[in-house]
């Protein structure tokens, strides 16, 4: 068997466009999950008691349902129920955010809870309000402690964008499928896809690890 990568070289702009969409979708997913997951995680730690049950229900259900199922529901079933048709990209963003935010919320909660209660007591003893204690003392340490888990969720978010290919979001994997079909060179196309995902993700996880190694002492109380 001989490998022929020429179809990939010929269509590099087509693939690069797909990669751009992959990274765009990943960046938006991470951003939205960070905001939503952060809010949910903090609400679980500091919010009113009645809010906790629905939040736990949300987190647990998202962790128990495959992202593909959430995606299919968002794209195909939601329009039937609500009548609103979502463009594939936005359906993908919503489904991925709903999933990743649940994990993010757990990371935030674990990070906050890992900071010794004595730190909060020390802040309160100085006369800080509870909100000031959280903002100035607990969160900065929690963020440092979250970094390793955050690195994992970051790479998972980027990889999971590939699932959006099933609803025809023209991201990298979807374009690879198109190219593989047109060129009859699936092995070369998917080998390239593997390499592209690896080259994209490897620096991300490495960077987060290096950052953590440098900052870890700031979160050690």
């Amino acid at each position, binding site marked *: 068997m001989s490998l022929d990568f020429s179809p990939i070289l010929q269509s590099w702009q087509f693939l690069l466009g797909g990669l751009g969409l992959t990274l765009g979708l990943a960046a938006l997913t991470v951003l939205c999950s960070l905001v939503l997951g952060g809010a949910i995680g903090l609400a679980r730690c500091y919010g009113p008691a009645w809010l906790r049950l629905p939040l736990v229900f949300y987190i647990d259900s998202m962790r128990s349902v495959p992202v593909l199922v959430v995606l299919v529901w968002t794209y195909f079933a939601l329009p039937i129920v609500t009548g609103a048709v979502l463009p594939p990209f936005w359906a993908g963003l919503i489904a991925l955010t709903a999933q990743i935010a649940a994990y993010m919320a757990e990371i935030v909660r674990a990070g906050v809870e890992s900071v010794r209660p004595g730190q909060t007591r020390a802040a309160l003893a100085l*006369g*800080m309000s509870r909100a000031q204690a959280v903002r*100035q003392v607990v969160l*900065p340490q929690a963020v440092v402690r979250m970094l390793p888990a955050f690195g994992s969720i970051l790479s998972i978010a980027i990889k999971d964008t590939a699932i959006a290919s099933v609803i025809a979001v023209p991201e990298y994997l979807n374009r690879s499928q198109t190219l593989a079909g047109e060129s009859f060179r699936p092995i070369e196309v998917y080998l390239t896809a593997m390499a592209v995902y690896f080259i994209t993700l490897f620096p991300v996880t490495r960077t987060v690890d290096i950052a953590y190694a440098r900052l870890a*002492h700031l979160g050690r*109380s």
Partner: protein
Amino acid sequence: MTRQNDEPDAHVVLAYRDVHKQFGDFVALAGVSMEVRKTEVVCLIGPSGSGKSTLLRCTNGLESIDGGEITLDGQVLPRHGRGMRAVRQRMGMVFQNFELFPHMTALANVASGPLTVLRLPRGEAEARASALLAKVGLADKAASYPSNLSGGQQQRVAIARALAMQPEVMLFDEPTSALDPETIGEVLNVMKALAEEGMTMLVVTHEMSFARRVADHVVVFERGTIIEQGPPAQIFDAPLVPRTRDFLSHLGWEG
């Protein structure tokens, strides 16, 4: 009962009247009454779990009390809520585990109260912090993070941090219990200097020689009650209550 600051009109900073505190079924404080007068050093001693640290935490509202009252300068402390924050600013607290903020330099730790709580301008807060670091002998460690400081140095920074709020009274919760023996002395010296300046101090401690030398008044706790209180000479040399003598002899104290 003789007391160095014994004039009847001696200013009472903190007064505890029949203070009760319970954690579930565990009675932590079963009716504690005592006073701390201005410029006095009061040491609380007694076995672990006897209620000393709980009394400190109740004093600045980190724990609420279930009965009785605590007054600061004659005003009854609020049980909780917004009023408690204003009260906490008038008391400095030093913890057994230092509880320095690890993401801040020594200077930023000391400046954090003035900056966040008093909302002083940064320059002013840092000037105050520098002066206090110098006072505890750590001017050269201003830029160090807690992870690069020894236990004794961390505790001295923590004392400076509490002093930065210019409190009327300092609460020390076993400040040397987590320290290596060779660094206990430097912390006790800072505390002694503070006492000599006239700071009012309430100290939970297992350092009997410190209590003997520095305290004006010693209070012995057992099972949530005060079994004896008096000047150090009485407590350490001629305790009135046999259980005080038992406690001290368990610690190897021989006068």
